[in-house]
């Protein structure tokens, strides 16, 4: 297993706390770019970037269309747009129909990244009350990518990760409290 070239984290209800816990281990020299697809609600819509930026030294940046994907950055899907990835490893934004009642949809990004990155992709699905992301994980797995799921027993809302565990041959099932260490390990991937 060589080190992945992109990590995508998908989360819905109950995932923000987990993400805030992971962020401190990501530093500006972190070798794997990270993209976070979060189902947002309007309560933290406006200050999400600032909140996330307060927990890490790495650059927190809302995805811009045509932007190249570079290590050292943590990209956040903008509210109300799907995030797509082009063959040349740049981002595209898409304002088409909601998928699984969601825009951004985790499935849409997982699937699209799976096409482009294949085995160089690692996807992590967190807490949530929606099945968005599960089909995408399946697709990523089929293309040789690495699939990681938050242990549903440690999720605030277990529906989404539980669904993933039931449907997908998960590579790593990680309790919430171990996720920061897991992410940190990506820098020295593969694990010994």
């Amino acid at each position, binding site marked *: 297993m060589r080190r992945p070239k992109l990590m995508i984290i998908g989360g819905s209800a109950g995932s923000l706390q987990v993400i805030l816990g992971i962020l401190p281990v990501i530093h500006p020299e972190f070798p794997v770019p990270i993209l976070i697809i979060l189902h947002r609600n309007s309560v933290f819509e406006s200050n999400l970037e600032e909140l996330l930026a307060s927990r890490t030294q790495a650059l927190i940046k809302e995805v811009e269309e045509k932007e190249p994907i570079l290590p050292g950055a943590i990209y956040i899907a903008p509210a109300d747009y799907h995030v*797509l990835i082009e063959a040349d490893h740049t981002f*595209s*934004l*898409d*304002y088409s129909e909601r998928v699984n009642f969601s825009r951004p949809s985790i499935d849409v990004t997982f699937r699209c990244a799976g096409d482009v990155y294949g085995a160089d992709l690692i996807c992590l699905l967190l807490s949530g009350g929606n099945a968005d992301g599960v089909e995408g994980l399946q697709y990523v797995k089929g293309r040789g990518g690495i699939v990681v799921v938050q242990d549903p027993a440690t999720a605030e809302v277990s529906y989404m990760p539980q669904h993933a565990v039931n449907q997908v041959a998960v590579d790593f099932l990680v309790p919430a409290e171990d996720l920061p260490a897991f992410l940190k390990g990506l820098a020295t991937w593969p694990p010994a």
Partner: protein
Amino acid sequence: MITSIRYEELDILLNDLFTRYGYDFTEYSRASLQRRVQRLFTLDKFPSFAEFRHRLQNDPLYFRRFVEEITVNVTEMLRDPSFYRTLRTSILPVLATYPFIRIWHAGCSTGEEVYSMAIILKEAGLLHKSLLYGTDINPLVIEKARKGIFPVSQMQKYSENYIQSGGIQDFSAYYTANYHLAKFDTSLTGKMIFSTHNLVSDSSFNEFQLILCRNVLIYFERNLQSKVFKIFDYSLENFGYLALGSKESLRFSPIADRYRQIGKEKIWRKVHEAT
């Protein structure tokens, strides 16, 4: 297992369509286009790429369906209310000084933004001297836009947008509800001209004081974006305004140095003519 349309196959298809029908999608962003084409391929249950390709080459009616289905037609009235608030407070007072106002909604889809604009123009007392052009590549959405009939189920959301945009009337006064449909007032439609227009291949057709093109350029590759910016620049009077979608920018375009952004909204004013 559903067959996936690969990027190489997509390119073959796009070349076919350009040769056969003169529609050029080759400079559309691939990731979005692949999703749309894949969706249609799955929806219409083609057993193979070869059959899909054959049908598209030989059935012009099916090609029409292709154009209707692969273009994104998601829109709403008064989307991003703060954008319309800025139009009301900063842009319309300037347009009011012109004897006649021409506005172009490029890629207007089913017309919700054109109706939104007509409403705020009416409330500013400017609709009588305005003409709103709505264009789209997709003939089906243009037909819908002309009718001005939208689902009643959307009206509550639109009414909320309207209030947030600074509207103080009763939004429901602008339409007549009949079962599940809302038909918008003919005083609004009377000032609109809808037509098909392809930003890739068609040129400028008039001069405007305001051009709106929101969430269209995100589907184009950089080179095509630049071409379209040049068409807009050519179609815009000096000191006219160009409005883009909330995640689009003039920043990397070849015309950027002659435009100045208005506040925080995605609205730019042309401050110099091309030399």
